[in-house]
């Protein structure tokens, strides 16, 4: 029997028995719908959690220190910083593409600004670190640069910011409203803004929590790029921590980055090296606090971590491992439930098929008497099941897609904002669709397998001429 003839039989029989097939596929549609729904949900949640909350493209290496609790205080035993030598050693580990040392600002700093957007100047203590500009090249807004631009001699005198170009401001020390140590009192000259990066977390926390406490407007992260404010290095809200020297700078936000500090500002590394040198001497420029390690491929992360730990460093737990584990387990639970539904549906399909084959035994017997082979009969029955499977799979995915749209709609318009609230909780990619349809086809054909064998064994003599 030719393939074309077989398909003609399959289609004509599907059309003739469409009611039976529709009934028999309800279970499989439900199962496939659940399966693709949970898969897409898990992919969507993973995307937010692993892509935005805990990006895991890199490793964060920190010095190994043993915390010893002494009353309320934990005394650190071992190194508290990484030297240039440590950085070189980490760079030498196989499969490490590149290392990017990071340095915390070791002097307190206060930021002042925000009037333009919030109606009032905020004055807050700022934590900051320096990062290798190479690590964040892609995150910097195209109209700005993320680099240290030292003031070049001779100094260009000025009266207004406009005289200092797009990336500069007029540094007019005596007219500033707070007290600080000025390097060149009485002389106004042009300076570059210091570029800083912030983390998306900061915006999320501001929009989700801070602004509610202070009744500020919600910030659009894209819009605040380019905004500038003042920082006073050496100043602190904790009076005891105030340094004897203070330096004033203006900083400008040039982008958001996954690599940026969660609660703080991220400067180009040379800037922080300079800051720390100002207060702690030349050696501070070579004292790093962590190293970001880029690995060739994600799957090498485990091996590289192990090597680095053997070198005597620690890997900072980003929380990503735990988060992805929880997502994985939850997803597996739901997928197993979906598979059980699909499995039960396959049993249901088997019953319907046995019934159908009983009903159609004369037809099958006649086909056999007229020359159909056993394999022809089996092929036709399995082909019917396969087609039903494809259709159920598609219907299941479409239903899952529709319900995800409904949920996203409800979330968008009826659920209040929360940090990292995604515009969609679902990711339907080709993988979900293909897997769902294959699964559906597989289980339909599995359900039809025994009925097909029985059909192939129908005895034409009995059903056509028997009493």
């Amino acid at each position, binding site marked *: *029997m030719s393939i074309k*003839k077989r398909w*003609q*039989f399959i289609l*004509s029989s599907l059309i*003739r028995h469409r009611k039976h097939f529709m009934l028999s596929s309800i279970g499989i549609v439900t199962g496939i719908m659940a399966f693709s729904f949970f898969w897409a949900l898990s992919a969507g949640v993973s995307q937010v959690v692993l892509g935005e909350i805990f990006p895991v493209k890199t490793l964060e290496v920190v010095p190994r220190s043993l915390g010893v609790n002494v009353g309320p205080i934990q005394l650190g035993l071992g190194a508290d910083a990484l030297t240039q030598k440590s950085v070189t050693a980490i760079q030498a580990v196989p499969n490490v593409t590149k290392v990017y040392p990071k340095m915390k600002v070791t002097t307190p700093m206060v930021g002042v600004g925000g009037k333009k957007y919030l109606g009032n100047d905020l004055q807050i203590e700022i934590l900051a670190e320096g990062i290798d500009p190479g690590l964040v090249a892609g995150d910097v807004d195209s109209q700005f640069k993320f680099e240290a631009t030292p003031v070049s001699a001779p100094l260009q005198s000025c009266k207004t910011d406009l005289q200092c170009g797009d990336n500069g401001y007029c540094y007019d020390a005596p007219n500033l409203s707070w007290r600080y140590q000025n390097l060149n009192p009485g002389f106004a000259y042009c300076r570059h803004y210091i570029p800083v990066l912030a983390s998306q977390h900061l915006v999320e926390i501001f929009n989700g929590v801070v602004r509610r406490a202070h009744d500020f407007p919600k910030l659009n992260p894209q819009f605040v790029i380019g905004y500038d404010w003042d920082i006073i290095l050496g100043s602190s809200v904790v009076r005891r921590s105030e340094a004897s020297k203070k330096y004033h700078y203006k900083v400008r936000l040039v982008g958001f980055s996954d690599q940026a500090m969660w609660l703080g500002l991220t400067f180009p590394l040379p800037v922080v090296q300079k800051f720390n040198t100002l207060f702690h001497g030349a050696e501070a420029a070579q004292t790093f606090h962590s190293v970001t390690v880029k690995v060739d491929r994600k799957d090498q992360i485990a091996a590289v971590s192990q090597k680095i730990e053997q070198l005597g460093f620690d890997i900072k737990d980003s929380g990503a491992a735990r988060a992805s584990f929880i997502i994985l387990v939850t997803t597996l639970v739901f997928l197993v439930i979906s598979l059980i539904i699909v499995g039960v549906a396959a049993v249901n399909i088997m019953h319907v098929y046995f019934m159908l084959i009983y009903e159609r035994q*004369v*037809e099958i017997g*006649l*086909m*056999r*008497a*007229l*020359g*159909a*082979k*056993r*394999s*022809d009969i089996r092929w036709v029955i399995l082909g019917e099941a396969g087609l039903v499977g494809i259709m159920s799979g598609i219907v299941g995915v479409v239903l899952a897609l529709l319900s995800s749209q409904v949920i996203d709609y409800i979330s968008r318009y009826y659920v209040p904002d929360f940090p990292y609230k995604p515009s969609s909780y679902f990711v339907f990619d080709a993988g979900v669709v293909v897997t769902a349809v294959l699964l559906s086809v597989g289980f339909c054909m599995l359900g039809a397998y025994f009925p097909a064998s029985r059909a192939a064994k129908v*005895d*034409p*003599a009995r059903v*056509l*001429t028997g009493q």
Partner: protein
Amino acid sequence: MEAISLVVVGHLKKNYQPKQCILNDVNLRIEDAEFVAITGKSGSGKTTLLNIIGGLDSDYEGQVEVAGKVLSTLSDDELSAYRNSHVGFVFQSFHLMPHLSCLENVLLPSAFNQGKAVETAFTQQALALLAMVGVAEKAHEFPNCLSGGQQQRVAIARALLMQPKLLLCDEPTGSLDDESAGDIIQLFAKLNAEQGMTIVVVTHDADVALKATRTIHLRQCGVMEEGQCL
């Protein structure tokens, strides 16, 4: 040496349950172009014998040879091919598929044909057969719209589509009124006389037996009597 017969049945034994006696040592020859009627009491094994010759039943002892093929040596697929191209079946209850038109019903065996014949050739053949059996104008109607006699004619056309050597009919007139039955018997006689078709008809109907060139009477437990030849 005698020319080989179309059907040779030798020492055929068949029972469905142990100790049962349905066919026991049946020996039978049917020559090419014969019109044979098989008669016998209900339960004597007529249908069983016909199914064995037609390759629908391969669970028996003894030898059955049709057109030089020893049926017991054929695989299941080969038996399917044999049923498709060497024999045509006509059943008491027609067994036409209700969802197919008469023409499509006649064409059904061609779907299982393993040769490379062209579809249009089959369609022409089917239309010619429908005309020959006298229901040409019903080709595109569904079987439900036809009388019993007409349905049986369509079934006969279907049995003839693949140009079999042997037509096996199990009580073909059993469900028909006398007039239609007479027409069908007439058709068999014509097929046999004009085209030399070998026909084996199982029947209770004395009229059929009279038209046949030979009558074989089956008795319970396979004892056979030859009827008078016409």
